[in-house]
């Protein structure tokens, strides 16, 4: 197992490095690559890679590299923020349901309800009800961003809640919880000191999967026309648009697709690394 010792930090650093690189590139995109992603050149449509356009151009002559960089800012932002919303909601519901007996039933029924709701009408309603006020408060672009993050977060927490609850139920049966209870330790303290640390790994796995789900859900929303305005590039949308041209211009789909996969892969490696670090007993004993 000694070789494992050496490789573990490597995975963490590899993941963190890759993720950092992707985030940095997309953030610094406008500085690194001067072309704006929405500038059209109708004389240079569907071009292959060239000096002027390293990744080629799309069907409206927009530079693909610029669009990929711009899309990354939105996709990564949606992924990270929606994951936070979803994991926070899911953990709160899961811990409460697992620890507070009388809340278990109602909370799990609410979870059932959310699991069985069809996403599409829900999104339609949310957009109808909240698009105008959010646009007025944050401006049209930030408004729709907030809406998409909220919608994805609010409809993807159920799995985390179920998993966390089942972990918590397991933890609650352990002798040290009973001991803590018998000494009169407050519920909040038990939750933060004993329950959360012991459910951490499940939460981290949920969180890393949530990032992927959020990025992909955003692409599905764009595909259904419920997400960002059409002239907004996101990785999911670029990937979907590029799929039609897979035979002729494979780069159109492969670049955004590869970036989605790499970001998710890096997130998972970071998650795995953090998970191992967070489990001191495991670290010590191996």
């Amino acid at each position: 197992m000694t070789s494992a010792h050496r490789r573990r930090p490597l995975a963490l650093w590899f993941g963190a490095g890759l993720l950092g690189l992707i985030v940095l590139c997309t953030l610094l995109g406008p500085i690194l690559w001067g072309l704006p992603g929405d500038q059209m050149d109708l004389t240079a449509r569907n071009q292959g890679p060239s000096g002027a356009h390293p990744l080629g151009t799309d069907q409206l002559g927009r530079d693909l590299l610029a669009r990929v960089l711009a899309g990354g800012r939105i996709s990564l932002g949606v992924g990270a923020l929606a994951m936070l919303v979803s994991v926070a909601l899911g953990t709160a519901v899961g811990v409460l349901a697992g620890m507070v007996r009388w809340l278990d039933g109602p909370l799990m029924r609410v979870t059932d309800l959310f699991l069985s709701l069809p996403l599409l009408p829900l999104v339609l309603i949310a957009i109808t009800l909240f698009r105008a006020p959010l646009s007025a408060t944050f401006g049209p672009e930030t408004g729709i961003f907030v809406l998409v993050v909220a919608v994805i977060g609010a409809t993807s927490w159920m799995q985390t809640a179920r998993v966390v609850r089942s972990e918590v139920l397991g933890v609650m049966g352990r002798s040290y919880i009973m001991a803590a209870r018998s000494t009169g330790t407050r519920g909040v303290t038990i939750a933060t000191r004993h329950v959360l640390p012991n459910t951490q790994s499940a939460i981290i796995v949920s969180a890393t999967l949530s990032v992927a789900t959020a990025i992909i859900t955003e692409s599905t929303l764009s595909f259904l026309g419920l997400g960002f305005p059409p002239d907004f590039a996101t990785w999911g949308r670029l990937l979907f648009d590029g799929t039609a041209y897979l035979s002729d211009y494979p780069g159109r789909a492969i670049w955004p697709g590869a970036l989605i996969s790499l970001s998710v892969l890096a997130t998972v490696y970071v998650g795995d690394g953090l998970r191992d670090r967070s489990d001191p007993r495991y670290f010590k004993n191996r």
Partner: protein
Amino acid sequence: MLNYTIRRLTLALPTLLAISLVVFALMELAPGDPMAQLPLTISPEVKAQIRETLGLDAPSHVRFGKWLWQLGVVEPSVWLDHVFGTTLAEGQTRMISWQTRGPVMDLIGQRLPQTLWVVGLAYLFGTALALPVGIWSAYRQYSAFDQITTGVSIIGFAVPPFFSGVLLILLFSVHLEWLSSVYDTTLRVTGWDSFGQQLRQMALPVAVLSLQTTAQISRYMRSAMLDHLGQDYVRAARARGINEGGMLWRHVLPNALVPVVSVIALGLPQVFAGAIVTEQIFRVNGVGHLLISSIQANDLPTVQTITVLLATLIVICNLLADLAYGALDPRIRYD
């Protein structure tokens, strides 16, 4: 345990009622219109008349009551009539889909076989593959096997089916011409030939879907195994010289399975709901396709019925999952 089961079952009915009410309210609030798919050449006056014949002008509570009656009483009697030759449903109007003007239950019945074949099989394959993969990659953490399966499963999870499906079609249907890209729902398996045909048309959608399932479940399995491999009792067992296989099988696995069973049980009802994107790409036209086309057409009776049937399955599966926790981990008590 029995008390708990009975209590949960008695709670299930009001839960389902509440869910159907919320779904109904949601569809009511949603801004769509079942007339939206009609061509613009049809005048507003004619559309108003069609709306009237669909019963759309009735107040919401009347429509909800009617739908509930049809779902809870008329459709089961139709089924009983069909099975036992009785005439319970005579004179009752069945639940009619607005889009097709055919009974909703018949539609679901037509779509279910292909969904179960494709999505169900994919779930079975995916889970069967994910469990050993997750267990082994946790047991040999950071081995080459672990690194590779982690990489593959994450890529499998991060690539949307609308991309992987098209990729597989290009490879196996267009270039190699081995497999079919269109699912024939009228195919009847009657012999080896038609069975082979069924296998060929199922292969691609099942592959796309099981990749997703495997990716997700193996992640949870690996993480749960790692948690338990680090526990004191494992060290104690090792110290006592229990053989590794027996220890994994008898002690670690039952504990580690608790959260994984929850994930598997949660995914199970989704098999019924089908896979919207994959079904569309391969023209499987199962329940997922029915649901999405009904949502797009604002065919409320169909959407509500599928959703409530799905909710029923979710409630049942969650109960089963909770019971399974108790069986796997005796420390969990529900009294």
